[in-house]
């Protein structure tokens, strides 16, 4: 083992000479369709994959996709396992204290409650939400009992098997699931708009990289290609810029 470590270290040392273009590692969750998911060939796919590739092209960066679990997505960015978070992460005050965000690339998106029936108790009942999301923060502050899960998929499964009365998540994520549930699941109550839209998260010290992505997002907003991408992945009714 020691030899191996040493060999790795030596290899890395010698490889330093051939240091050419820096790759930007894009960290995502890969479990939040249509924002980001792992498609059937095992590749990262979704709105953010297409957006991220386009942003990298415009900013003339070489990018590589990395998946990580949601719960440790911010600590892993800080310890340098990847350079950006592009994972449907809403910009809010709490997160802005520890990482910095680019400008938003989706307008503030509505969140919704989904339950098995219209009369589910969303005010005092048990509500499932993904851990460390703006939705889980919102439920914790409301009167309902919060039930947290590591992945978004598990929050919906909890409603299906009766563990929770309703699930609270981004509407964009829930709508396809409700539409394909053959009437089993319904959207309850009106939308709640939380956060300031989804942005890319970067280390606070990476101001140069943030500037590049900011400029790329601006250029996509200006030529309308961002709106086209939003409509492609979230449907005709989606909010655009």
């Amino acid at each position, binding site marked *: 083992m020691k030899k191996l470590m040493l060999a790795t270290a030596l290899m890395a040392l010698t490889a330093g000479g051939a240091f050419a273009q820096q790759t930007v590692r894009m960290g995502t969750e890969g479990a939040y369709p249509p924002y980001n998911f792992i498609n059937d060939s095992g590749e990262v796919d979704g709105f953010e994959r297409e957006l991220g590739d386009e942003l990298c092209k415009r900013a003339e960066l070489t990018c590589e996709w990395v998946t990580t679990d949601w719960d440790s997505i911010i600590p892993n960015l*800080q310890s340098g396992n990847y350079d950006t978070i592009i994972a449907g992460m809403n910009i809010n005050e709490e997160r802005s204290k520890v990482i910095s965000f680019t400008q938003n690339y989706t307008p503030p998106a509505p969140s919704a409650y989904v339950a098995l029936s219209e009369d589910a108790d969303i005010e005092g009942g048990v509500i499932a939400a993904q851990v460390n999301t703006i939705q889980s923060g919102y439920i914790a502050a409301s009167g309902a009992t919060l039930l947290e899960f590591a992945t978004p998929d598990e929050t919906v499964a909890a409603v299906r098997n009766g563990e929770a009365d309703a699930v609270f998540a981004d509407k964009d994520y829930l709508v396809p699931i409700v539409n394909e549930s053959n009437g089993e699941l319904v959207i309850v109550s009106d939308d709640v708009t939380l956060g300031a839209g989804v942005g890319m998260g970067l280390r606070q010290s990476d101001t140069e990289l943030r500037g590049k992505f900011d400029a790329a997002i601006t250029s996509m907003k200006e030529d309308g290609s961002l709106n086209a991408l939003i409509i492609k992945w979230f449907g005709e009714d989606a909010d655009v810029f």
Partner: protein
Amino acid sequence: MFEVCADPKSLEGLTWLSCYLTSGKHLNMYWAFGTVLLLLAVTAPIAMAFGFLGALAARSQRFVLRMIGKGYTGMVRGVPDIVFFLFFVIALDQGIEYIMHLIRCPDWTDPVRNGLEFRVCPQAKVPLGSAPQTVHQFYGFMLAVLTFALVFGAFAANVLFGAMQAVPRAQLETAEAYGLNPGQVFRRVLVPQMWVYALPGLSNLWLILIKATPLLFLLGVQDIVYWARELGGAKTQAFDYPHPDWRLYYFLALLVFYLAFTRVSEIVLNRIAARLSKGQATAAGEAMRKAGI
């Protein structure tokens, strides 16, 4: 993979299933079985080596060595695996990068620690940021091997320490009476005889190690439990193969895999136990001698 699978949504029945089970994502899962087996194959001998060294240190006449051996087994065994995996790996990774940073970027002026951020110069990243993802995966895998080996080595050290103490004193005295020096007594009498006492403890450790492999995902290595959860989750039309929540079936498959694997391990371990008992001064060895095996 097959041509018929080009348009998955038009397929039905068995064709659909065969296409589904050979999708790229499933192939990743099958690879993950290999990853887990490889991890076990690599980790077990290294953990054994750590254990052997730990046991030797703990038995040493020298105070410092003895304290190192005892400290290693005592501390590592006392820390929950999951804490060890979360703390040690990050500390090790950052330690390596910090040393690289000192070597490669002596002129770097920005602080490495900046609040919660850990930021070394780009040339000091291990592996380098420009390295392909496979190198990152290999590095993560090696970190996992080292961590598993350290944790399980501590347990193995205690088992081997106990086994060395269990070899009858009379055996060693006889060897000494024949004029063997301490090194020879250790190599030719103590070590060959201790395995039979160590085996029950080591077989426990092996089975626990098999079950501990899902901790791999904490280290960013995508193991079979990760893929079972990912593949089993309900899939909407955004995917080529939409399906409801199938996690139950995937986890059942894992259950079968783990049970089968532990069963095979048990059979092999029983054979080893029989072989090691032969001719030994233990009750099992004595019974074998009487039965004429």
